[in-house]
């Protein structure tokens, strides 16, 4: 017979109890915000399980699923929450630790600031700054380790799981496709490397994400970057292993706050104009000055740009380690002769983008498809003649389209289990990669009881990590630990062990801090004055 998943062995074994609650306040009900089951079923499941475990342990908690916008408004832009479940995707920029670490700086701990957990810790700020401005790898790594250790110990955030993400392609038709970090299959490397095994000439990539715009000034989501990266070259790029490598730039030199790039010779934009350092210099200033949502933040530290032939020197106000690894690996090189004539870049649709990338946009049909033609004169010329991005109506549509062969490659950052049914499909290869993104629990350290580290530690110990991995993720995940995922080997601190469910430790932490369960079964704050 079927039974519900037992939550036994989790009882508050040696929970601190008291008979007299005089002089104590009860801990209010904790609200855990999450997305609705409709928006994100597995996140909803994770959250439900956590709340159930907390309740089981005697802590009053309730689940509050809300819409995307409401969730964002209450958390990222409002900070009006107790705890919420977040999902940090495995985006390329997160291959560098700076992106995640930057989210815990004290000066971002305002209602509209980027420090969602409202975490304030001067020691952390120092560590963050050090890694950000370090100019040698060793110092930076040490500072990164220090920063992640502080987050691990102070618990403003609890990474719950690192999902294993899946992707799949028709290996009976294409070769040369290799899994990479970030988006494992759909990236510029595979787009150019994919080679047909038969006489087909178009690589058809399925996606549920309809890239909203091809105007770099307007692009505001990381996902929209991918089509952009096919059309526009970037000076640097992150390769399949997560290393920063040269791309349009032949060489890059960093000395203190000065970055010097030398562009390849002989590159042309798709309209035939040669690519020069002036274009890159223009781009840097243009995207900074037009406040392009995706790039302006990274470029804000640029205090000066100078171009000389193919060489460009960028001066930063202060050294920034992430500038090369994050900003320059994303930055599309724009043709100055096109953009300098654009009257209002915010209404410019950029229907026929002129770039120096390996592909040119042939046609874009909103909600249906984008098709690209390969540029044979590119230094990394694609093996296939064309690439088509087919916009799908739903994730499941992509699964069936790959099965039936309507698409060749499908890479929609989803847990690997979602690709399960493809494993049996003929001619399809499913790729599973350990994500460097994670799902986690942000705790609002600016309000009680989350302002108390002991309480945060207790809550963290009451999360049933194994169940999250086994039941919700169906095994396609690793239990959480540091904010820098273990898969980012060069930054992850291996000393920080994965979390484990440990009710005893939780109760101990509560008892030590003076919390106790009253005769009514509720948890009470420590006695005031003590």
């Amino acid at each position, binding site marked *: *017979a*079927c*039974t*519900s*998943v*037992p939550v036994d062995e989790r009882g508050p074994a040696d929970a601190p109890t008291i008979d007299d609650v005089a002089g104590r306040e009860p801990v209010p009900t904790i609200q855990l915000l999450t997305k*609705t*089951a*409709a*928006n994100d*079923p597995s996140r909803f*499941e994770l959250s*439900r399980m956590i709340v159930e475990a907390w309740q089981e342990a005697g802590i009053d908690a309730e*689940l*509050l*699923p*809300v*819409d995307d916008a*409401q969730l964002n408004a209450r958390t990222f832009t409002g900070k009006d929450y107790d705890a919420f479940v977040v999902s940090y995707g495995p985006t390329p920029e997160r291959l560098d630790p700076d992106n995640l670490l930057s989210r815990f700086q004290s000066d971002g701990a305002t209602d509209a600031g980027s420090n969602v957990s409202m975490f304030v810790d001067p020691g952390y700020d120092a560590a963050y700054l050090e890694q950000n401005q370090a100019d040698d790898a060793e110092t930076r790594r040490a500072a990164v380790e220090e920063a992640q250790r502080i987050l691990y110990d102070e618990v403003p955030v609890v990474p719950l799981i690192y999902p294993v993400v899946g992707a799949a392609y028709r290996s009976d038709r294409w070769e040369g496709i290799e899994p990479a970090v970030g988006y494992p299959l759909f990236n510029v490397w595979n787009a150019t490397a994919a080679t047909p095994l038969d006489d087909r000439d178009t690589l058809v990539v399925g996606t549920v994400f309809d890239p909203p715009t091809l105007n770099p000034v307007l692009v505001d989501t990381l996902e929209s970057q991918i089509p952009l990266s096919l059309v526009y070259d970037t000076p640097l790029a992150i390769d399949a292993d997560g290393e920063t490598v040269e791309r349009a730039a032949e060489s890059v030199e960093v000395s203190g706050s000065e970055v010097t790039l030398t562009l390849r010779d002989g590159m042309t934009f798709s309209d035939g104009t040669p690519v020069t350092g002036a274009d890159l210099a223009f781009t840097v200033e243009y995207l900074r000055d037009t406040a392009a949502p995706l790039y302006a933040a990274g470029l804000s530290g640029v205090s000066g740009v100078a171009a000389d032939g193919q060489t460009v020197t960028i001066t930063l106000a202060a050294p920034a380690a992430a500038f090369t690894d994050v900003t320059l690996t994303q930055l599309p090189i724009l043709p100055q002769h096109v953009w300098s004539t654009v009257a209002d870049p915010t209404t410019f649709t950029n229907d026929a983008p002129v770039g120096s990338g390996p592909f040119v946009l042939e046609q874009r049909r909103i909600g249906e498809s984008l098709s690209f033609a390969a540029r044979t004169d590119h230094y990394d010329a694609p093996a296939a003649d064309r690439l088509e991005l087919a916009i799908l109506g*739903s*994730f*499941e549509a992509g*699964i*069936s389209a790959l099965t039936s062969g309507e698409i060749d490659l499908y890479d929609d950052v989803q847990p690997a289990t*979602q690709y399960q*049914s493809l494993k049996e499909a003929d001619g399809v290869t499913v790729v599973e990669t350990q994500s460097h993104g994670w799902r986690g629990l942000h705790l609002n350290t600016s309000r009680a009881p989350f302002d108390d580290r002991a309480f945060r530690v207790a809550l963290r110990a009451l999360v049933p990590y194994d169940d999250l991995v086994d*039941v919700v993720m169906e095994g396609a995940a690793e239990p959480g630990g540091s904010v820098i995922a273990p898969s980012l080997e060069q930054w992850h601190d291996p000393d920080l062990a994965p979390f484990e469910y440990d009710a005893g430790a939780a109760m101990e932490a509560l008892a030590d801090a003076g919390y106790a369960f009253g005769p009514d079964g509720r948890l009470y704050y420590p006695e005031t004055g003590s």
Partner: protein
Amino acid sequence: MSAAIATVGWQAAQRVWRTPGAKLALIGFGLFVLVALIGPWIAPYDPFARLQLANGEPARSIPPSLEHPFGTTSYGRDVLSQVIWGTRRTLVVGFVGALVTVVIGVNVGLVAGFAGGRTDALLMRITDSAYALPFLPFAIVLVGILGRSDVVLLLAIAALFWRTTARVVRAQVLSLKQRPFVRAAVVGGARPRRVLYRHIAPNVVSLAMLYGLFLVTEAVIAEASLSFLGLAPPDSISWGTIMFDAFTSTELNTTWWWAFFPGLAIMLFVLCMSLLGRAYESAQAHRWESRQP
């Protein structure tokens, strides 16, 4: 007027019962209502519980069997229990939606038809405009703007569905107004309010009930459609949300039962209601209007 509704309602039920072919629908309807009322006590499992097999494996995607007559979902939940729990929300939305709509529709129709002139013209232009708004896009947008909640859903239903009832009632009132017995009431010295509520309104009640019955099915389908599109209130369970889960699970081709049974429930319920409506209609047809002694 509520007394009129009560008597008309009871007499209607009796007559419908005697109408051939309606018994089955009435029984089916009764069953649905019963399930909605006592669902939580008869559901074999917690609808949200992730079930395990005896060997500790999650009870994922089990086809219909004795143990799980409607099978289980890919999360290992019992579909039958979900359908049973979903009945309540579905029916509540259906009936409350229909009630609100009928009340609005009947009153708009009564006032427009009876007052005539400018009031009528204005109300009818508004009704026309309501006809220009197709329900589903309207509701989707409304939910998108005001948030996913039952109140918004009912608002959407109430905001549009009254239009048919209003039109029909208005037409009825216009014809009643010209009927000699209403003119006779005026000649007899009845004031407008008395004419409207004593002579006209009771003759509209059975029509309103009929539209009420049909509106229940419309509201149920509306709720289910929105839920299916993922616009149900968070954490709610209805036949539509079960199907939404099934549809977005990517495992529909291996767990057809997940979507099949909640859909079947909707179909049977709607069928029951339409059959009832028809039975009521035919039971009503010659009752009061009979010209034969």
